[in-house]
């Protein structure tokens, strides 16, 4: 078969290559990190800021216990603005307390309470008349799909990777997977998906993404490639 030149100077391969195998641990962690955009805003804030704050405080407490300049009780009193700081370690805790305590109490807790109150009279249309069972509530969040699994999947999945990997990315599975994750992540970060349950948010973003990227992929185009040129 002759060389295909549509869609760019690099010829389109005539067949889809096999995927390179299971993603490395780093890439799986990256995919999980990007998938957090399916979570609610509060949960994302806890992951993005709450965990680092908790880690910082833990380091301060442990530092106090190990250096013996102050006891963990002294660190707690300074952090919660009860006592004044007496040396460097406690000054760090005091500054963190001044910044974080009002933010956590006033900002975070206030937002959670306000949102819960507003939701009592404004149910999102996507959840009307639906019943969420306990198993659904406890189900862990999903991850953005690994495209390698599509190679042996349904017809729609195989067609998608043929368009997205072979045509749009010239059989570069790594780049195609990266750009797929970026596209789904950024789609989930929009207001249209803000009020959806995390599984529903991920499902809709991926299905609309596959419809859209299949269409543009067949023309040999990728918006992430274009924006990163």
């Amino acid at each position, binding site marked *: 078969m002759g060389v295909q030149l549509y869609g760019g100077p690099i010829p389109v391969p005539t067949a889809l290559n096999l995927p390179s195998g299971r993603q490395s641990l780093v890439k799986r962690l990256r995919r999980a990190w990007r998938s957090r955009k399916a979570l609610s805003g509060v949960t994302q804030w806890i992951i993005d800021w709450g965990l680092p704050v908790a880690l910082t405080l833990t380091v301060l407490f442990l530092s106090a216990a190990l250096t013996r300049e102050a006891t963990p009780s002294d660190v707690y009193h300074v952090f919660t603005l009860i006592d004044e700081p007496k040396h460097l370690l406690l000054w760090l805790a005091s500054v963190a307390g001044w910044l974080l305590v009002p933010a956590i109490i006033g900002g975070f807790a206030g937002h959670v309470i306000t949102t819960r109150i507003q939701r009592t009279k404004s149910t999102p249309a996507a959840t009307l008349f639906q019943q969420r069972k306990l198993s659904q509530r406890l189900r862990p969040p999903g991850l953005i799909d690994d495209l390698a699994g599509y190679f042996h999947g349904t017809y729609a999945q195989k067609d998608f990777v043929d368009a997205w990997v072979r045509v749009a990315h010239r059989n570069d599975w790594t780049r195609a997977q990266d750009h797929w994750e970026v596209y789904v992540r950024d789609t989930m970060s929009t207001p249209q998906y803000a009020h959806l349950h995390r599984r529903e948010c991920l499902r809709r973003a991926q299905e609309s993404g596959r419809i859209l990227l299949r269409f*543009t992929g067949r023309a040999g185009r990728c*918006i992430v490639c274009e924006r990163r040129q």
Partner: protein
Amino acid sequence: MRSEDAVEIARATLALALPQATDESLTRMAEAVLRWGAEGVEPHLNEELISRMFADLLALAGVGVGPDGYAPADEAWAERLASPAPYRTWSRSEGMEPLAFAAGPVEEITPPPRQSNPDQPPRGQGDTPAP
């Protein structure tokens, strides 16, 4: 592009493949795609339904297949667009060809052939017609 709106993201993506399309048609296409993504139809698409979906998108865009419109990079694949399914499984928008609606791909929802039941009278003697 205002990245905080999913429709804007979809419009910018579609504009890559359809540089000749108007802003209004890109908006219609983007809204349709986001709606279809919520309807749960994508996992059940087969070859004919994908061709039909592409035909619907091109109808919303008001362009055809070719160098001045939608130009598939793979010529061999482009021939499949000539045989779309005669029905669709997603919602219809203004500008799309009126077609029958099916709950899923026809080969998946076609009921099995009715087996003869000797306890029932033959057809044409007062029994209700099959749905």
